[in-house]
């Protein structure tokens, strides 16, 4: 509207410049994302230097620099510090960063799609579904057939639980914040029972592995599973980024989004499959890590607003940093003993969740 000469040109440009500071521009996007990227690199470097074996920050940087110059294999002969950093800590930190970033991005997407600021893949039982899928793959021996099968069955499990969740939401029309959480609690109870049932079918060594993995752990990933997960994540991240602007419209309501030209059914299908893909990949390598997907988006929204074009990458970076820090605390606080990282995130995340639910009444996102 407002075409034609009814309004003087100066007035038109004035209104345009007047709203510019209040919106997300590509300049602000670039500045925020670069700042977060720099912060992420710094966080990872600092966390590399913590651990049972004290390795100075300067030495960490030197080891990494040598590894980059000479290639990883040559660096292996460079002493025990280099082996600890390159073979133990780097893979674990990379995995932690990817997992945390993914959980936060999945959380943002679920919150927008369900219009519920407390949505979290763990709380809603999406991670639980993935865990059931992964346990099934272990029991049936499918996971032994190739590295790709564990994430694929976890993906199938989380897709199933998302479909169930969405079906429940559809029956009620628009589901209130609390009813949806209640549905998540019930779905979670069902899935834990299923996992317990499946573990009792396994031999004890398998069962122990599954149970400790259920607490959430980033310990000792091998290169193959790391690269399988990384490729799942790359595809999922791209699919989410493509839908970021449509996701903004979905947060307002499905009718509004539809009338603004969003093909709501198609976008929702894409987003459901993508969140299931990411959750499946994450759970298959790190087990059940809760509350990252709820706590990080809240903090990120305070920092950079509600536009999902910025919120998604911001959550990916801050989720990564959050989990890397949590894991560093988990493996150093009671050294040489290690806490599962899921324990750490729950210790921080659950009280925050309660605060949002009780004090802020869960009705409004920060």
């Amino acid at each position, binding site marked *: *509207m407002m075409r034609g000469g009814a309004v003087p040109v100066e007035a038109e440009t004035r*209104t345009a410049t007047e709203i510019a500071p209040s919106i997300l521009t590509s300049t602000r996007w670039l500045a925020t994302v670069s700042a977060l990227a720099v912060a992420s690199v710094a966080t990872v470097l600092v966390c590399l230097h913590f651990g049972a074996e004290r390795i100075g920050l300067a030495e960490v940087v030197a080891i990494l620099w040598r590894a980059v110059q000479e290639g990883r294999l040559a660096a292996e002969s460079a002493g025990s510090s280099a082996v600890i950093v390159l073979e133990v800590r780097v893979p674990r930190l990379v995995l932690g960063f990817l997992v945390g970033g993914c959980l936060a991005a999945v959380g943002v997407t679920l919150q927008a799609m369900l219009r519920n*600021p407390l949505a979290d893949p763990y709380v809603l039982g999406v991670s639980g579904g993935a865990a059931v899928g992964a346990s099934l793959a272990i029991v049936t021996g499918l996971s032994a057939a190739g590295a790709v099968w564990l994430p694929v069955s976890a993906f199938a499990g989380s897709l199933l639980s998302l479909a169930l969740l969405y079906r429940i939401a559809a029956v009620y029309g628009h589901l209130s914040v609390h009813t949806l959480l209640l549905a998540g609690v019930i779905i979670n109870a069902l899935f834990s029972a299923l996992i317990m049932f499946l573990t009792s079918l396994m031999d004890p060594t398998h069962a122990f592995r599954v149970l400790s993995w259920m607490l959430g752990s980033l310990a000792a990933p091998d290169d193959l599973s790391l690269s399988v997960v990384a490729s799942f994540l790359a595809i999922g991240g791209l699919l989410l980024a*493509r839908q*970021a602007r449509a996701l*903004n419209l979905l947060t307002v309501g499905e009718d*509004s989004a539809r009338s603004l030209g969003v093909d709501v059914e198609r976008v929702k299908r894409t987003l459901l499959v993508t969140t299931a893909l990411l959750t499946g990949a994450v759970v298959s390598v790190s087990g059940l890590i809760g509350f990252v997907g709820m706590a990080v988006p809240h903090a990120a929204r305070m920092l950079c607003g509600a536009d999902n074009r910025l919120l998604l990458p911001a959550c990916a970076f801050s989720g990564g940093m959050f989990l890397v820090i949590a894991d560093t605390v988990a493996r150093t606080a009671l050294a040489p003993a290690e806490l599962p990282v899921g324990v750490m995130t729950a210790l921080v995340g659950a009280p925050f969740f309660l605060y949002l639910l009780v004090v802020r009444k869960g009705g409004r996102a920060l």
Partner: protein
Amino acid sequence: MTAVVQPQRDAAVAYRAERVAFSYGPRRQSTEGGMEGWALRGVSCDVGEGEILGIIGPNGSGKSTLLKLLGALLLPQQGTIRLQERPLDSFSRQELARIVAYVPQQSSVIFPFTLAEFVLMGRFPHRRTGGVLGGFGWETAEDLRAAGQAMEAMEILHLADRAISDVSGGERQRAFIACALAQAPRVLLLDEPTVFLDLRHQVDICAIMRRLNREQGLTVVWVSHDLNLASQYCDRLLLLQDGALARLGAPSAVLQPEVIESVYRCPVLVDRHPASGVPRVTLP
């Protein structure tokens, strides 16, 4: 407004709805042809290009349902709706969004978008598509201009950096309308746009609607509970009763005491507005 514009037989028609029926639940149609439980039961009407049409009727008479059908947010189970002589379901969502804007009944936004960001969402149908990050596209200067103008028209420009989750109901309502105006539509569908507004903003929104209608030929379909506002600002009124068309015509023809009394089941007084001469409905 004294002159009543009746769309002529050969005047351009924006919408043509024929025997449109819709049911939210499972479709029940008894063997005798009754349609219990249907929200709309075979409504036929035209909306003229450049007309302001008011949809009125008691609660649950199907006003919002009819509006959503016109916006293709619901699909009729029976009957057809044509927009600009084309079946409504032959438009893609994006094509449709460049022609028709829809303002929902008062709804809340939970996430803290700034008002400017929210109004800019109205530019979504005008985005450039394609490329790897097709959905990412940044708003153009033209988008900013359209959003700024719409916000100025709705007097919310000074609230540009406020979070939509924090503003008052009236301010949010004006933001929704600004979003629809930024969409640069040919047809504006409004579901109870004045319901949360104080007197001055009610009049403002009606005046803006009428100005856009007169200056740019914007077609407006407007669901209203307020019979007197509808009488003042609409070219024609469509009165619904239990999902069926009760009357369609100029306000003076529809707002007859016996018609209103039988449809709303409530005694009313109808006299003339002292200034404009349109019918005025009051309780005795």
